[in-house]
């Protein structure tokens, strides 16, 4: 089965993502009282092994919050928020917390929830859908946990649509990457939704 999006489908998905990304970054900017620099998101097809390999190489320097999302019409996937450890250690300062007031883990989950739910709620509204979420999980610290988690995530798919969005908090040189993974079983469903939007134009 061909999972690739054609040019119009890719363009449409990218624009839906742009709008969602804009509102998520606005929420993040208000939360941190700063400005978030946005770049054009990328959309690719990735194999389960390819994804695992690409993140394994740098996993020792990363923390990741993973959260599943589920909508109507078989729209589902996993949102990964990837932070460098040097950045995650700085989040408490950004949020104005006193040391020991809130653990780094809780801070990462807080910030990830804002980004993920804002992004996906806006995305869902645009496609006249509604999302529910699993509890966010922090995957970090222990060596090997990241790749293990990715392997678990990909146990039921060989290919996934991978969307990369970069949120760069300029004042603090803080960087967060959002990776959305839409497994192959959901790609056809999202293509159907996109085609419906394209028909209007």
């Amino acid at each position, binding site marked *: 089965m061909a999972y690739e999006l054609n040019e*119009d489908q890719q*363009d*449409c998905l*990218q*624009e839906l993502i*742009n*709008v*969602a*990304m*804009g*509102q998520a*970054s*606005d929420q993040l*900017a208000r939360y941190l009282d700063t*400005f*978030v620099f*946005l*770049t*054009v998101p990328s959309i690719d097809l990735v194999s389960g092994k390819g994804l695992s390999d690409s993140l394994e190489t740098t996993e020792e320097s990363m923390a990741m919050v993973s959260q599943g999302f589920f909508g109507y019409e078989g729209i589902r996937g996993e949102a990964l928020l990837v932070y460098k450890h040097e950045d995650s250690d700085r989040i408490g300062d950004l949020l104005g917390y006193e040391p020991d007031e809130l653990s780094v883990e809780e801070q990462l989950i807080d910030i990830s929830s804002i980004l993920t739910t804002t992004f996906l709620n806006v995305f869902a509204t*645009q496609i006249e859908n509604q999302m529910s979420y699993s509890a966010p999980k922090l995957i970090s610290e222990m060596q090997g946990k990241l790749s293990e988690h990715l392997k678990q995530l990909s146990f039921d798919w060989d290919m996934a649509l991978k969307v990369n969005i970069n949120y760069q908090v300029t004042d603090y040189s803080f960087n967060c990457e959002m990776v959305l993974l839409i497994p192959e079983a959901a790609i056809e469903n999202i293509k159907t939704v996109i085609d419906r*939007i*394209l028909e209007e*134009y």
Partner: protein
Amino acid sequence: MSSSVLICDDSNLARKQVLRSLPEQWEVDVQLAKHGLEALDVLRSSAIEVMFLDLTMPELDGVGVLEAIKEEAISVKVFVISADIQPEMQNKVLELGAQAFLRKPINSETLVSTLQEHGIM
């Protein structure tokens, strides 16, 4: 007499959304650009009265286009239509000379009332 309009956005869908939102009674001659560099080429080679400009684009973004317009003193009324709705960004584009900031996705009602507020039609 028709007005010359330029729509600059890297998304085909977004360009269509702007086109579809233009008032029916407004006679326009529309040109399209996929990024900032293409938009500047059009602005430098033909007289454009109104431009609808996206911000987050490859090659040259919308802020870069506004800076070039200011530096080269190009006469054009720019309406920014963007998903980057942070207040700091909205203030920045207005300081750079944009007439108004409109958030994506655009709809006809908002676009028409904004054009009327600015005496475009």
